[in-house]
């Protein structure tokens, strides 16, 4: 009975196995990126970028269908174009960077939806906006895994400057020039992982599997390494539970995954050992020292 509910779908159906593999790959790469986004106070930047890359991904989608490689390339170009343009406008006009980014991502989102709906069908539009992890073919799965691998490798390379730049940017500037390149590489990783999440979760929710696990981790640890591990596990568990939920109840898979992650987040906010609500309401007697 329990076997049928929890493991059965994956032994029985290949598309469920593929979806599970994809969601684990997404968790491994996306969750650490999410942790850094959160710690660098860029959570909403991730969200904005997710919308900003839509036109590029949409063009790739129209040119070569649901080819994740084309969509990744298009998304990267659009993402960087928006990030750089927003930065330029902010720097040359005195408009704050977040306001500038907001205008650009709204324009991008509108443009992307327009492009998809001009040439594609409503199904395509739904697909781009909300994804469909159950329709993952082998080639797409390989691209997802490839992107995840690249992400982890690059993250390993830029890890140290990225951490130091997050804590003490001025110090890094005095000892090294690695700060700027590390930041750019990190932005590229954000875009890569957003595009990677496209197929599974769509533009609107892709960032969810990055930020929610990071938010969860924040409530359980004060150590960066532990935080990253918790985030990865939380993302993978959400992915798995979301797939099971979606299989059993016919809730679409993408929203199901994000809903499970949100449920875990709620539990963490309430019962987390680091700053959780319950812990703050009932802290126990104060210590001796």
């Amino acid at each position, binding site marked *: 009975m329990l076997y049928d509910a929890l493991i059965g779908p994956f032994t029985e159906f290949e598309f469920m196995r593929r979806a599970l593999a994809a969601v684990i790959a997404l968790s491994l790469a996306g969750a650490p990126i999410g942790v850094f986004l959160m*710690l660098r106070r860029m959570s909403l930047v991730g969200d904005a970028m997710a919308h900003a890359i839509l036109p590029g991904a949409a063009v790739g989608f129209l040119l070569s269908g649901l080819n994740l490689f084309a969509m990744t390339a298009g998304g990267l170009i659009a993402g960087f174009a928006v990030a750089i343009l927003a930065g330029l406008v902010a720097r040359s006009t005195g408009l704050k960077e977040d306001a500038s980014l907001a205008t650009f991502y709204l324009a991008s989102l509108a443009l992307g939806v327009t492009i998809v709906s001009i040439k594609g069908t409503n199904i395509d539009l739904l697909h781009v906006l909300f994804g469909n992890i159950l329709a993952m073919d082998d080639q797409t799965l390989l691209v997802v895994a490839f992107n995840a691998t690249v992400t982890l490798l690059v993250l390993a390379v830029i890890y140290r400057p990225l951490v130091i730049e*997050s804590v003490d940017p001025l110090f890094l500037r005095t000892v090294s020039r690695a700060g700027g390149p590390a930041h750019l590489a990190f932005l590229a990783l954000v875009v890569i992982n957003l595009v990677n999440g496209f197929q599974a979760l769509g533009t609107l929710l892709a960032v969810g599997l990055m930020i929610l696990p990071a938010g969860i981790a924040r409530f359980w640890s004060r150590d960066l390494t532990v935080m990253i591990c918790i985030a990865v596990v939380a993302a993978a568990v959400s992915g798995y539970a979301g797939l099971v939920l979606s299989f059993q109840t016919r809730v679409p898979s993408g929203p199901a995954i994000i809903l499970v992650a949100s449920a875990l987040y709620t539990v963490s906010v309430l019962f987390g050992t680091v700053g959780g609500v319950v812990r703050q309401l009932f802290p126990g007697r104060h210590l001796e020292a």
Partner: protein
Amino acid sequence: MAALHFHNVTLGYDRHPAVHHLNGEVAPGALLAVIGPNGAGKSTLLRGIVGILKPLDGSIHLGGLDSRDIAYLPQSAEIDRSFPISVLDFVATGLWRGTGLFGGIGKAAREKILRAIASVGLNGFENRPIGTLSGGQMQRVLFARVLLQDARLIVLDEPFNAIDSKTTADLLALVKHWHGEGRTVLAALHDMEMVRTHFSETLVLARGPVAWGPTAEVLTPENLMVAMRMCEAFDDSAAACSADDARSRAA
């Protein structure tokens, strides 16, 4: 050979000078206090020395020092204290020159880090997140990192601001220890008593140099008055400066 050579240096922001036409040399191993009223350009000068700020005019020669031979302790470090990093890891970044991007931290390096933490009086704090430290403890941590940087030129911007006398005394002892090791130390300060008793050389700065030399000769009420009077005026429509080399002197 001087550790530092200022050649008609003008530093500032948006073409407005904050340090105007500074000339002079700092000898290797000097213990130099930079004093002056708020807005005199002390921090700006130090930022110029460590290379964060490019001079608007003139040049600063580091006498063969690489930027990695400089340890800089900014006034209000833009440190994100909420970032989950332990005291040990944070101090360890001081070893950057040796470890760079990928170098590991072995047993010997770990010993070194622990010794640095111990020498600023923070034994037992190794695994505490930096977010849980008090202001004075954080300043001790920053000194421990400077210690590890093992730099030949140490630049401290108001290192004893808002720090109690015990911590100040401990950290001041470190500064004198660095001086004893032959390192060049520059510190922006505003505690005249401390400058008088502990620093051999002083630069009174008020945008331009007012006086520069042995502390006892330089730290006179007259010089300080002059420095105070050099207003902080910031003229939006100031004309381009043509002064060649107005006030300056070589030390």
